[in-house]
């Protein structure tokens, strides 16, 4: 069953004669529980595609249905709520709030979903335990290494058990060992908790554990490679 269906997605920037067409009509289906990597050279449009699928941006044309909801016509408020309740994000540079401890960073979306303080604390601590950061609950982001910060970001993404996790080049700022650990974590999440993961990466070795790789070039999908069965 498809959890993401995108039809004829186009995204352009600028106006009049200065329009840049970044996505030129993309059709994508992603099945529930699938781990998909989007790859391509710089400027291929892979991140832009991910922003459309992850409800962070609105396509110029096309239709996107995520978890049964047509997200294109949602209001800003509805998009925010949708992201909160359905999606999890791992950004390239961790994107943690510097004033909050690791635990508090993870608690934010949980509290926003209406969970009480105690339950949110328990869930965030458990998520930190799951990513191998037990005992670092009270550390500020500045007191953690890059790899640890990215693990906190993953813990934040998984703590509220979202249906889909979007990871935008999650290994880009990490050394190879930390990068591998992050990919292992995402793979483990996908395998054990059957969460759908959509990851943008430009390093093929990090994409070897995924179900499918989508290759992009100049704003279109040029190839798909199935690595393993769902």
């Amino acid at each position, binding site marked *: 069953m498809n959890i993401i269906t995108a039809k004829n997605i186009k995204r352009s920037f600028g106006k009049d004669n200065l329009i840049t067409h970044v996505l030129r009509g993309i059709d994508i289906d992603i099945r529930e529980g699938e781990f998909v990597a989007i790859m391509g050279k710089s400027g291929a449009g892979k991140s832009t595609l991910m*922003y459309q699928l992850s409800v*962070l*941006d609105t396509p110029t044309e096309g239709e996107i249905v995520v978890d049964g909801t047509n997200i294109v016509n949602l209001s*800003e*408020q509805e998009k*925010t*709520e949708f*992201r*909160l*309740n359905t*999606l*999890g*994000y791992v*950004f390239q540079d961790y*994107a943690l*709030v*510097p*004033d*909050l401890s690791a635990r*508090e960073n993870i*608690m*934010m*979306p949980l*509290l*926003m*979903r*209406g969970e009480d303080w105690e339950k949110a604390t328990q869930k965030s601590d458990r998520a930190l335990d799951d990513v191998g950061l037990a005992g670092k609950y009270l550390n*500020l982001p500045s007191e953690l290494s890059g790899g640890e910060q990215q693990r906190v970001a993953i813990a*934040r993404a998984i703590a509220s058990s979202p249906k889909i996790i979007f990871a935008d080049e999650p290994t880009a700022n990490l050394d190879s060992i930390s990068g591998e650990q992050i990919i292992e974590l995402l793979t483990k999440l996908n395998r054990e908790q059957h969460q759908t993961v959509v990851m943008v990466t430009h390093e093929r070795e990090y994409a070897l554990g995924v179900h499918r790789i989508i290759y992009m070039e100049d704003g279109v999908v040029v190839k798909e490679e199935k690595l393993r069965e769902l």
Partner: protein
Amino acid sequence: MRSLRIGLLLGLRQIQRASLWTTSLIIFVMMLTFLNLIAVSGILVGLIEGAEQAVRKSALGDVVITTLDNQDHILETNSFVREIATYPEISTYSVRYKSGGTLEANYKERRDLSGERDTAAVTVTGIDPIQEHAMTGLGDLLVEGEYLNPNEEGYILIGIYYIEEYAQQFGDVFDTVSDISPGDTVRLTVGDITKEFIVKGIIESKVDEVNLATYIPEREFRRLFNRLDRNADQIVIRTVEPSDNASVVASMKASGLDAYAKILTYEENLPKFLIDIKNTFNVLGTFIGSIGIIVASITIFIIIFINALSRRRHIGILKGIGIDRKAIEIAYVIQAAFYALSGSALGALLTYGFLVPYFKENPIQFPFSDGILSADPETTFYKFIVLFIITLIAGFIPAWLIAKQNTLNAILGRK
């Protein structure tokens, strides 16, 4: 509610993790703004309040009894005084007789009888020296000489505005006699009657009414002015609790005493121009203070704007992971509230813990008053509320401007 909870967490943590120096500086600016708002108008109003307090202390007391509009004197003064003496709420009073006369000095040394005489038109006040001193502390206002002795006759106290050497600092405003010292002889002429007095003392006060008076014992006044009915012109009363003066007046009126005299509280007796000046000073002070508020609100706006702008990407990420925009705005409003509350609390502590007591002990010396710092807690509270609300708005607007930006643009740092 959820947004409030998240906003509180974010706001508190931002305050907690902010640079101590920056936070201290912002709080200091807010404290100065608060002081500017309270102290400037407080000192301006305090000048008038100081004058009012001086008049209340040295001249009029808490309740003022004067003649009815259609009468020359307070009717049945003796009975009136006997009645008020029974009021337990009244701690002391003084009965005054007042009239005009001509004071002449240096007449014994005058050789040229065709030359100008050294005279001044004066207000003569007949008092019971003991009662008056108990009521207004008149005996403590002497700059030269001694106070009247109730057992002596033929002595006079003169206010400084009638003496050229003292009054000349105010220009040629007052009608004066010159070269007078205690022990000198002067004469007072009322109609056809002239009586000599020895100057017993010279009185100086912040209150014009005292400086523009001459005092003689009431017995001599009644004889000089032929006031044999013993009806006085003014009775001033001090109540045990000054703030209870209105109820004392009400009680006196209920007893029917207002048929004999006009009975007013000190506040009712205040001249309208004084109230107008006080209100004008208050408005002026508030206006000057308002400039301070505008400066502070701009400061807060810039601080919050820079703060929010430097965290634009984090704000985008928070929105990206599903945090409501309101929560982010609340976080910045909480910061602004923290600055306003801390600054105002410090300002209030400084005002009521130090400045008000200091100016009470060391009033600012003005010719017409001992200037105090007037900081009525109720007015202060209202001004604080204004400062607080404006600060919140100044904190909200930049947060709103940044938080409403496109989420993805904020995350990617795009314009």
